[in-house]
């Protein structure tokens, strides 16, 4: 397990932090919101592509930079710092991983270069209820002559309102609740029978509900072995969870820094509020949680690159810890700013809103505590 960045990783980290700070600050998200863009940002996507961020996980042979998860984690943390609305989690992490881990050589040749270049973005269409539940898929995929016919509905698909290709998880066998019998399908947004309901979400990033009505998918768009979708899905989800935890860590750090700054400048009763011991202790506890979360995220990221056998456990650890930390910090950011923190004008609320979306995506802290307990046999 490695907790120290290589020089390359550090460079990428600096690039990403500077980029999001300068080009995608919270102000930018506010602008997208106020102009009704609902988190959709083609110019931003173009810049991310130019920086090579879409290809961080993709090997050089498919036109990526092949730097791995630790590297991608640095980018995610940077985007978390400014709450940037980007397709990176769904595309650079989840989409790229799904094709890398599950795709045939032909599929890799077809899709990975397009992802790396930013030409194609993807979105995983998995959950059908309001809580993350991979085995709960009921969407049906029925074999037809030259492929499959899909019917079902997907809820709150992140990036679903603008992604080019959906990775749809559907059931080719068994019943909702079974871990077996799932299959992954690549479904272009413009396929017949796909309808997209755009959602205006609390974090201003947007999302979509998806309905699939007799959508035909050819054999060539099946990702991995039929019925065995979970074998690809679980490792892909874990990568997504870890990347998302890195994003959450970035958000937590940025919110904490904002609060830390305020503690050192805001006066009440003639004293800096950071000189009140009750607030000092709260800040010290938040700092402690941030440090602990940092270790979990680093360990989980490097576990992927090292192909360790405890990735699932570390993913649940990182996601749950990051969840607790981001709520603690973003809530206290509002509270310690007082009234001004309650206004839309201030950026504190953006962090709190986004934190709840981060929490719900890919499994809440409660989901991951349950999973962690299961992995540990109780």
């Amino acid at each position, binding site marked *: 397990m490695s907790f120290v960045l290589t020089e390359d990783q550090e460079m990428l980290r600096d690039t990403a932090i500077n980029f999001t700070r300068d080009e995608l600050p919270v102000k930018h998200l506010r602008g997208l919101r106020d102009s009704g863009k609902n988190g959709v940002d083609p110019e931003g996507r173009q810049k991310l592509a130019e920086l090579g961020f879409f290809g961080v996980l993709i090997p050089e042979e498919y036109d990526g930079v092949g730097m791995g998860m630790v590297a991608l984690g640095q980018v995610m943390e940077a985007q978390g710092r400014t709450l940037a609305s980007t397709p990176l989690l769904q595309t650079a992490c989840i989409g790229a991983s799904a094709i890398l881990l599950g795709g045939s050589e032909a599929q890799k040749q077809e899709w990975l270069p397009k992802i790396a270049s930013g030409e194609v973005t993807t979105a995983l269409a998995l*959950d059908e*209820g*309001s*809580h*993350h539940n991979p085995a709960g898929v009921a969407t049906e995929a029925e074999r037809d002559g030259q492929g499959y016919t899909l019917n079902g509905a997907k*809820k*709150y698909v992140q990036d679903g309102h603008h992604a080019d290709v959906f990775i749809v998880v559907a059931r080719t066998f068994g019943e909702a609740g079974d871990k077996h019998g799932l299959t992954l399908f690549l479904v272009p947004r413009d396929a017949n029978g796909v309808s997209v*309901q*755009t*959602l*205006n*979400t*609390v*974090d*201003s990033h947007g*999302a979509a*509900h998806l309905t699939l009505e007799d959508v035909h998918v050819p054999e060539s768009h099946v990702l991995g072995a039929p019925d065995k979708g979970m074998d690809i899905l679980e490792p892909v989800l874990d990568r997504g969870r870890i990347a998302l935890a890195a994003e959450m860590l970035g958000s937590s750090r940025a919110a904490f820094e904002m609060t830390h700054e305020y503690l050192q400048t*805001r006066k*009440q*009763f003639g004293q800096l509020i950071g000189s*009140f011991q*009750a*607030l000092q202790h709260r800040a010290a506890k938040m700092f402690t949680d941030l440090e602990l979360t940092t270790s979990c995220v680093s360990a989980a990221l490097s576990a992927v690159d090292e192909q360790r056998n405890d990735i699932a456990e570390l993913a649940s650890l990182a996601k749950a810890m990051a969840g607790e930390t981001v*709520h603690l910090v973003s*809530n206290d950011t*509002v*509270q310690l700013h*007082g*009234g*001004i*923190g*309650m*206004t*839309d*004008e201030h950026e*504190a*609320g953006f962090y*709190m*809103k986004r934190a*709840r*979306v981060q*929490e*719900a*995506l890919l499994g*809440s802290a*409660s989901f991951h*505590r*349950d999973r962690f307990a299961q992995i540990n046999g109780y």
Partner: protein
Amino acid sequence: MPYDAPSDLETFRQEVRDWLEENCPQSMRTPQPEDEVVWGGRREKFKNPDSKVWLERMAERGWTAPHWPKEYGGGGLDREQVKVLNQEMSRINARIPLHSFGLWMFGPALLEFGNEEQKKRFIPDIIHGRTRWCQGYSEPGAGSDLAGLQTKCEDKGDHYLINGQKVWTSYADQADWIFCLVRTDNTVKHEGISFILFDMASEGVETRPIKLISGSSPFCETFFNDVKVPKDQLVGEVNGGWKIAKRLLQFERSSISASGFGSARGSGMLELEEYAKIHVGTDSDGKLLDGDLRGRIADHQMYTKAFGLTVRRSQEQAKAGQEVGHTASIIKYAAAKMNQDKHELMIEALGTEGLGWEGEGFDKGAKMVTRGWLRSKGNSIEGGTSEINLNVVAKRVLGLRDHQ
């Protein structure tokens, strides 16, 4: 002319009942929609014309302010009579004829601290709902340290000149007049504050609504730029405003905690455990599938129950004439925590269903929860932050002193 209360309470009850029967319009005996609430003042539109009739009739008897002295237009009722009036009104589900910061906060303070002329001038208009008042207390720089206010009030001989800015002024954009704390001496802190009244239509007054993280709000920023105020509109002594302010804060705090942050029930919102059952699911015994969340919901609901019992205990003790300062001091702190915990758990139980802001694709009630969740974050800030509340408990109740 104000009603001349008879000495016998049951006679009084009968008379009230008869009068209400005759004078309360039928439509005023139905649940009140949000947009038919009457706040009075120049801008009042009386969406339902019966509201106007009802207000006028009640105000005529002084029963919008039943316990205020008759000489200024109040009802002149004693405590027992007020109780009877309230009982009879709720018996027929009569609507409250007038919502008013004048009635709840400013009026009582003016009756206590104002001079004769001021009472004569302002109290009747409050009772009749002719003037709508707002409160100019908080300032952007002051926060919890209310007495740190900087809005300047200069004595210009025949008038005062006011410059500065207020924030969190509820309904400033709807109000006719403001009662306002201003600084008349900046060499001292609490002893340099005065309490002044002026017309919001005065030249130099500007208001701007505040958007909260939860969306639009009744709050405003209020700016004063060379506002001229006649000298007879200062209440109490010059530099003697702090004690009026403190008394007023008591009214405000008790009204905030009593309201329990009443979440907008009805209109599609369900209870926490209902949301959890729907979105998290239950096993064959009806137990929530997520045992961890279930335990936390139970923990919260126990706290809620304990809170409710504490409010009742406090009321019973007060009735029994016991000291309740101790209990009351924790109510606001606990109410804020309770309401925030509830909304956090609701959002958690809702999962992605709780992440909607507006538009299609989300349950209407769930979107209200989301807004309510964000709004609840203010509970531990407005009307005294939770940190200040804890300070107060530590110092006033537990007698812990500051560093010496």
